[in-house]
């Protein structure tokens, strides 16, 4: 067991957790932040992507106990003053989601792309999102939504 201090979605928390609790499990089962989803056991699907210190990571690849002092943002932490993030707005406007299961990871990953590349091309968006599997949309409207968000951010 280890005590960790983290800032999650702007709130400071302090928890005693076991050394081998994955960040994804920690967020879902201990903090009840169930917007972060688990779609596979092999770090392949990307449904669990969150931001750790501003960078997107698959939260199933990190132990929560190793992240002492980090700032973590999950899908629940994107809205500001009740207003959705431009990426969330763009996904809604352009129908970038259907069943919604891959969506949190997809949105978190796409936001990180725009931090590094303000005006990505279609190809750059598709290559960046290669680590996030969506079974519903065929990706077309996701790509369109990321471009839309880029034009608004």
């Amino acid at each position, binding site marked *: 067991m280890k005590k960790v201090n983290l800032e999650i979605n702007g709130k400071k928390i302090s928890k005693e957790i076991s050394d081998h609790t994955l960040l994804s499990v920690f967020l879902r089962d201990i903090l009840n932040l*169930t*917007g972060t989803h688990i779609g596979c056991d092999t770090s392949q*699907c990307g449904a669990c992507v969150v931001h750790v210190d501003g960078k997107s990571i698959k939260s199933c690849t990190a132990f929560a106990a190793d992240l002492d002092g980090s700032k973590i943002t999950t*899908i629940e932490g994107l809205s500001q003053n009740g207003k959705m993030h431009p990426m969330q707005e763009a996904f809604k406007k352009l*129908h970038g989601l259907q069943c*919604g299961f891959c969506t949190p990871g997809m949105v978190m990953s796409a936001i990180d792309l725009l931090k590094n590349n303000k005006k990505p091309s279609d190809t750059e*968006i598709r290559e960046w999102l290669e680590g996030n599997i969506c*079974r519903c*949309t065929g*990706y077309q409207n996701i790509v369109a939504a990321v471009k839309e968000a880029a034009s608004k951010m």
Partner: protein
Amino acid sequence: MASLVGSRVERKEDKRFLTGKGRYTADININNQTYAYFVRSPHARAKITKIDISKALKASGVVDVLTGEHIAKDKIGGLIAGWAIRSEDGSEMKCPPNPPLAKDNVNFVGDPIAVVFAESLEEAKAASELVNIDYKILKAVVNLSEAMKDDTIHKDIDKNLCYDWLLGDRQKVKEAFDKADKIIKLDITNNRLIPNAMEPRACVVDYNSASEEITCYTTSQNPHLSRLIMSAFGGVAPEHKLRVVAPDVGGGFGSKINLYNEEIVCSWASKKIERPIKWVAERTESFLTDTHGRDHITHAELAVTNDGKFLGFKNETIANLGAYARVFGTVTPTYLFGPCATGVYVMPAAYSNVKAVYTNTAPVDAYRGAGRPEATYTIERIVDKAAIELGMDPIEIRMKNFPTEFPFKQTLVHQIDSGDYVAGLKKAKEMADYDGFSARKKDSESKGKLRGIGVTTYFEACGIAPSPVVMMLGCGVGLWESAEVRFNPTGQVTVYTGSHSHGQSHQTTFAQIAADELGVPIENIDIVHGDTDKGTFGMGTYGSRSLTVGGIAIVNACKKIVDKGKRVAAKMLEASPDDVDFKNGEFVVANSNKKKTIGEVAFACYLPGVRDEVKSPLPEGEEPGLKESAFFDPANFSFPAGSHIAEVEIDPETGEVKLDRYTAVDDFGTIVNPTIVEGQVHGGLAQGIGQALTENAEYDETGQLITASYMDYTMPRADNLPEFNLGFTCTKATTNPLGVKGCGEAGSIGAPPTVMNAIINALDGQEIQMPATAEKVWRACKNLKKTKNKAA
């Protein structure tokens, strides 16, 4: 008020999904819950000689361990096949028992044998290792083409044959073939797929010992049907003591139609151990135990004249059922396949013969398209082969054989009410710049690449209903749909539907329909689904049936609301109901300015009397309140159709296929929300392209699934797909008041033959089987070089 049907309304469901507020089954936790972990067979076929749970029972945190022995003692029933299919000789199909926990024999890797309940998932998992099972390993039947000659898997099922089914007339086909100038022959496999909804299956069950009610939250496409099966066949609890809730469900694609072992076991066990239970599948468990799709071997023949007229068609198919027959397992390769195998063409004679066999693999059932992708792949591949052998253009040969008058009596079963296949193909040809292909091919060749173009025209029978027809064909239930429309006293509307949305957007499209029917703003309409305690009953969502069956039930219930509203408004306005018109949410007396809004009428229905300023006496004999329901059973299936054209570029040095262009022109009749329909087409295309290029479920000779993770089973990712070019034509369905046809499966039906026809075109007609992996294509390119060198 402008009509909402036809407009791009943004989805009402999105905000919760985008802000992490969706509520999927795995997000649900119940106080004092235990965690279930299933012990599964590591062998494809074995006899269980001993199960010892004593060590596991003593392990840390273990609440209980249950086996097939316990479930048999409590007389809990197993899983069932939903459709009874007869063989050509009239004999009944043969289905083995499928107990929720295997007691004596296991028949595929992943077949559940025991379950451990513990205080934590880690403890349940650790204790599962202590369940000691002795097996006598038997030779697994894995190879589909050899399965009928192999060992018998199930007692009394000779040749592992469930049925040997025939649709059509062998004699007529023989006569047609005798007259033909040419017989085109084709041998194809339709590769086995795993649906892979992104949300793994899960269930959370709570038993209340006081009310004796079991509540099962589960990842289902049809909670009402699951409750029916669990109660009537499983004997878990009477229906009124069993509540099944399918909350937000993260995709289904057919894999969540079935009621599964885990739902029965956890529901039964929660009563037994008097604790809530949570079970969530790991992805590998999903790969092993979700129902798989497709898996056919087909020999097809097409009889043609020298000028490209079709005279007759036949196919002999072996379909893999896997280890057990499940809900749609037996109908998918028969009535959902055979009738569509003659395609969109006038085909004077045809038959389809299907042998469905058991193997020691996961059960095979409906997967997006279910039977119709297999049918379309068969006919569209052989039509292309005919074009090649006759030296005709693939568009020309198709145009030549289209029906031009509707209704069109299709060869084997269906009476197609409406369509215009010529218009669809013309539009696709134009949008795809078909005529510019040869220039693009030259350009590719100048870069050392090969380029091919592929065409498909399809129709499909979806909107699965009507009850009299499906029951005649063997379905165990009627496939109607229900709706209930409740007007609140203050004017908002709640609509209950028996269908279920797991990505299809019912909350939006059904609200658009109700808004138009009732003249109520869409913000004031809520759609409720997925809970057997809310709403009447429903057969669920699959086979592109939600809108064409469930949506129409909503229309009809709304019409009853308007009818009652007219009677009430007439009384309020002192007019005859016959003189009251309803338009844009207002009841208006003809030739007058007297009117009441539907909100005022609804309010009046809840205040049936006169007092002070309230003046709303109901007509004599009229009940108070404003709530109506409807069950809709359509007169026929719906028959969407389309024309798809793809272009591929192949690097002959690596065999890599780049899908460069994809055009789809579909006819779905009236479109309720174009944005959502486009999304459905995109998703279907991605799955169909996945089948053609990358996806393949593969078992080794011992029956181990060797593609049981996302590293081995290759689903399309964003960088594997092009931007799709979509178009629509519209011939309205005549069998429902909205004129709608199903759209959910079209992409997965049209894409596989379109892509494969393009690849084979690039390979100068060389046949290859799906998926067209780089290795297969590279080998074909090598052959091509050899042939070319020889010719030189």
